[in-house]
């Protein structure tokens, strides 16, 4: 077997192992349960959730915020690292694109799940009003989905062509499918030029779009009068939080891929070490904005604000708040200073905890604020004064998370997790170049 073929075998598509099949079955099960629960919600109304007039947004919205945040990874790893010419990004780029796409698609679906009248969705276009942050979201999310999709697809073209050629004799039908998506890629000079320009444009676009996306996400909250939301800090706070959850998700997925496909020689300790440093920087920046958000207001907070901070720091939400802040942010920021914790395995463990905490962090941004309106909560059933997601909400939310994982799993199943074309060129294995010359 030539080194070139070995390369395709290593990073290219691999059939699901038994473990992979079980994993898929598990995800599908969650998704089916979610679809059933959602159908029930459509029929009975959002009564099946535990949201009520005071806690009018719940886990759907915080889950949405999490997805939007995580999709920011495309902007950092793909674009920023490319523009700064950080070569160590290479093994992560494709995975980052996949994670970003899965997350932004699921963000779009999640926000529709929260809408009580999805049947009237067209109103968002017919009667759109530009001053509403939701309209901004209606514009930015499809845009970001498109750009993320293209950002994954365009760099993929040569790889699809490689797979087309590779499977030509072994599996003609598979080869045809790859050929269809490869858009007749032949490494001609013109194709390469157009592709290069397109990718470069997309990379330049994805940074501002990512910043806009995260800011709009923050403005959904900070354009209200709510204590704990109407903070001028919210834009950068959300952007820095998005860096943390995005990189956390990327490291988690990258480690699992590396382990399952035995890519240790491609994704080395060096790469993880570099990524760990970036991850630590993200944690520190986020910590800084957390201090701005929760510590500095302690000095001048009005009564309502103090009450809000009190519930977070010492009250009903204190335990989750300190877990999320301590274990999910401060501890990683400290641990990642040390090289041993930037080793793939330990960093994977850190990243997975960070991602889980990042999910709960969004929950803590959404819910406690709603429990502290300006006027006291009176004249409604006692249960309306608390909020914890109902079974329906949990099942549907799990389904959305499962769907994101399913999208990631499926793309990784059929598409090379790193650019074969690039790797071959780097190692001067040049079969593709030979073809170009021919």
């Amino acid at each position, binding site marked *: 077997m030539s080194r070139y073929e070995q390369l395709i075998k290593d990073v290219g598509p691999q059939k699901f192992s038994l473990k992979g099949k079980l994993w898929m079955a598990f995800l599908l099960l969650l998704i089916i349960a979610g679809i059933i629960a959602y159908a029930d919600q459509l029929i009975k109304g959002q009564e099946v959730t535990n949201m009520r007039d005071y806690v009018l947004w719940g886990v759907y919205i915080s889950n949405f915020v999490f997805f939007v945040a995580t999709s920011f990874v495309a902007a950092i790893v793909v674009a920023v690292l490319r523009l700064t010419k950080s070569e160590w990004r290479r093994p992560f780029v494709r995975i980052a694109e996949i994670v970003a796409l899965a997350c932004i698609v699921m963000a779009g679906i999640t926000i529709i799940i929260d809408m009580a009248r999805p049947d009237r969705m067209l109103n968002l276009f017919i009667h759109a009003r530009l001053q509403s942050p939701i309209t901004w979201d209606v514009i930015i999310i499809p845009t970001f989905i498109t750009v993320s999709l293209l950002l994954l697809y365009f760099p993929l073209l040569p790889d699809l062509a490689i797979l087309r050629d590779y499977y030509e004799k072994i599996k003609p039908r598979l080869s045809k499918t790859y050929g269809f998506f490869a858009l007749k890629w032949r490494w001609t000079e013109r194709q390469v030029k157009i592709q290069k320009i397109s990718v470069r444009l997309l990379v330049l676009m994805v940074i501002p779009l990512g910043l806009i996306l995260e800011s709009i996400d923050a403005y959904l909250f900070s354009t209200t009068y709510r204590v704990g939301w109407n903070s001028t800090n919210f834009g950068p706070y959300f952007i820095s939080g998005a860096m943390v959850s995005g990189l956390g998700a990327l490291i988690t997925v990258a480690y699992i891929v590396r382990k399952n496909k035995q890519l240790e020689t491609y994704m080395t300790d060096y790469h993880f070490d570099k990524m760990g440093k970036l991850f630590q920087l993200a944690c520190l920046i986020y910590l800084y904005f957390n201090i701005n958000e929760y510590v500095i207001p302690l000095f001048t907070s009005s009564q309502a604000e103090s009450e809000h901070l009190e519930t977070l720091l010492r009250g009903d939400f204190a335990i989750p708040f300190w877990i999320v802040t301590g274990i999910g942010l401060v501890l990683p920021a400290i641990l990642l200073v040390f090289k041993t914790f930037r080793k793939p395995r330990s960093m994977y463990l850190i990243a997975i905890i960070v991602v889980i905490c990042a999910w709960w962090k969004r929950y803590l941004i959404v819910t406690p604020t709603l429990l502290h309106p300006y006027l006291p909560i009176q*004249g409604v059933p006692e249960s309306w004064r608390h909020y914890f997601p109902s079974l329906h909400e949990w099942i549907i939310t799990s389904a959305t998370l499962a769907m994101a994982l399913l999208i990631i799993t499926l793309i990784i199943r059929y598409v090379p997790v790193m650019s074969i074309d690039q790797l071959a060129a780097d190692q001067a294995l040049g079969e593709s170049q030979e073809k170009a010359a021919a």
Partner: protein
Amino acid sequence: MEEQQKDTRRKFLNNGWKLGLASILGGAALAHLKEGFAAEGPESTGETVELMDTDGNIIEVDAAQVEEMAAAGQAYEVRRGMPGRKFVMVVDLAKCQNALACQRSCNKHHFVTGDNAWLKVYKMQETEDTAPYWMPSLCMHCDQPACVTVCPVDATFKREDGLVLIDNDRCVGCRFCMAACPYSTRVFNWSEPKQEFEMDMDMVHQMHSPEHAGMPSVMGTVDKCDFCPHQAVKGELPHCVTACPNGVFYFGDKNEDTVTNGNDTVRLSKLLEDNAGYRLFEDLGTEPSVYYLPPKDRLPFEEGLDNYNEFQSVEKPDQTEETPEAS
């Protein structure tokens, strides 16, 4: 050679469409110009008409120059509201003793069947040392409404007569308006409302209008106090105003500087001045249309405690009684 040919063709095409566009624009301009000339000189009829100009002078003009104005019969638009009006309310906290007649009446006439009344009487006490009082709260119909700003589909809108209403046929149920409202005034139809109407449902749907909220309520959309424009149209007061035994609520028109609680009709400005009227959360800049008079020399607070129910604002129909199905 071939290249050059292509190039000239491209140039030709390029110029061609520019020329086309220019001629379209030019044609349109000419058509307008023609209209302009036509308007210049209507044929004189010889007849003259006497008119009064804006300064009050009587002038004589040629009959041909007088044009009928369409303004007289302008159709009423729900989204524009009643021309020339600015509805306001004044709530006199000194007279409120939590009788809750307002709430019951509101619930009844707006068919409120959920768990959250649109009109609530809050038991207020800012700190331990300050005195407690009862504070009815309804939609403030803000002049800078936070809810209207954030609505993505213009389902909730502000009218010229000051009202903030909801189009339940357009609302997509995102609940952003509820998050935005600092007065917690909006309620949501989390499930299919269990409303009962005396007339049949077809008629209810026919009468369905933002001007009578709750008739019927629509699942997955937002409801709130509408200041009862369906009453104002009839020349009657909102239900809470007429129901209150103590005359707490004054309703009226700011442009007329008049408000009434059914018994007394007073000057709004004088009422506010004499009693040091204020608005709720003035510092937020929402500019509410509801004024409060401070609870000075108020009716005994304790008497209201009997009626106070922390966890209920809508009376549930008696379980033992047979309830006719709403169809």
